[in-house]
């Protein structure tokens, strides 16, 4: 497998100057295919999304390789009686697939996020039953598969069976053994 020096992977808040990098993956149908996002169509949309969604977000990080933004990780905490759990979403630019970048970004996220969001005790991910690549990323990052939720939600108009994965604040993040 082609190597990336995974120590060059970092997480940081989004910046307005990430707009072009952001558009290059958020404007790619192959990346947004399994996501709730609509594919971005212009630099203006990328700027607006960074300004209006990424920057005020409870916990969203740019995934960087070196100084270049190649993806994102989002954590959406619940509120009220659901405040102990949070949903995770992530995406990486197509040219960085298959190199361990997403797995590394998730492991880094899991090492940080429980400290940043102390009410959160459970992080969960909903993954399409046919999205094998994302299931592998979650498993390598240490998530447990809780089960298959049948006909759980629509994704872009199609009714989906979704696997539910979870990682608890008491779970151990696997050491980087790539």
């Amino acid at each position, binding site marked *: 497998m082609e190597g990336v020096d995974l120590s060059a992977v970092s997480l940081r808040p989004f910046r307005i100057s990430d707009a072009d990098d952001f558009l290059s993956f958020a404007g790619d149908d192959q990346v947004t295919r399994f996501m*709730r996002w609509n594919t971005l169509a212009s630099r203006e949309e990328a700027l607006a999304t960074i300004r209006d969604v990424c920057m005020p977000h409870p916990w969203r990080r740019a995934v960087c390789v070196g100084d270049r933004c190649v993806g994102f990780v989002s954590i959406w905490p619940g509120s009220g*009686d*659901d*405040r*102990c*759990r949070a949903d995770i979403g992530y995406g990486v630019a197509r040219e960085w697939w298959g190199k361990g970048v997403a797995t590394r970004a998730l492991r880094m996220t899991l090492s940080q996020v429980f400290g940043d969001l102390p009410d959160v*005790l*459970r992080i*969960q991910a909903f993954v399409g039953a046919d999205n094998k690549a994302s299931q592998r990323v979650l498993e390598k990052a240490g998530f447990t*598969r*809780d*089960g*298959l*939720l*049948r*006909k*759980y*939600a*629509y*994704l872009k108009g199609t*009714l989906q069976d979704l696997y*539910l994965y*979870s990682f*608890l*604040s008491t779970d151990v993040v696997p050491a980087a053994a790539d």
Partner: protein
Amino acid sequence: MEVHDRQIAPAQGGSSGGVISLRPLQLSDVDDFMVWATDPDVARFCRWEPYTSRDDALAYIAGTVLPHPYHRAICLDGRPVGVVAMERNEVASNACRGELGYVLGSGYWGRGIMTEAVRLAVAEVFGGARPELERVEAVVDVENKASQKVLEKAGFRREGVMKKYFVLKGKTRDAVMFSRLATDDDS
């Protein structure tokens, strides 16, 4: 086992000792409502604390029950002994699923009444009361074995255990996810 007079509808619960039916809960049902709503055994796994005031019960019926997308009194021989409800998700991509909730007066536990009420409710929602629903789901505390048995007997499938899923009365709880689809065969 005694055999009671059979009726086509409402449904007959074999060992329940009466006829089980569903109908909307009204303000005039408040005194029956207070029987289960004040009972700490009933409230144990619910998000709410036992009611202490009839006025609070009336406000709840008026504000939450009457406008609810699907809420029914469980009646035994015409008298409310519990409720069953199906929530609605406002986000369009989640509208295919509804979460089921139910309570029954503790004096009526262990007689198959809740299982029958759940069956009736599922048939109503999939039969036209909630045409957008593909999936009915229930999230049950891991310690609430009686409720898990109700769902198993009512033909729900256990999909998995979700640890530290929600906070109940200040404590983090593990929960079991159950579901029944509009396309599931009768069990």
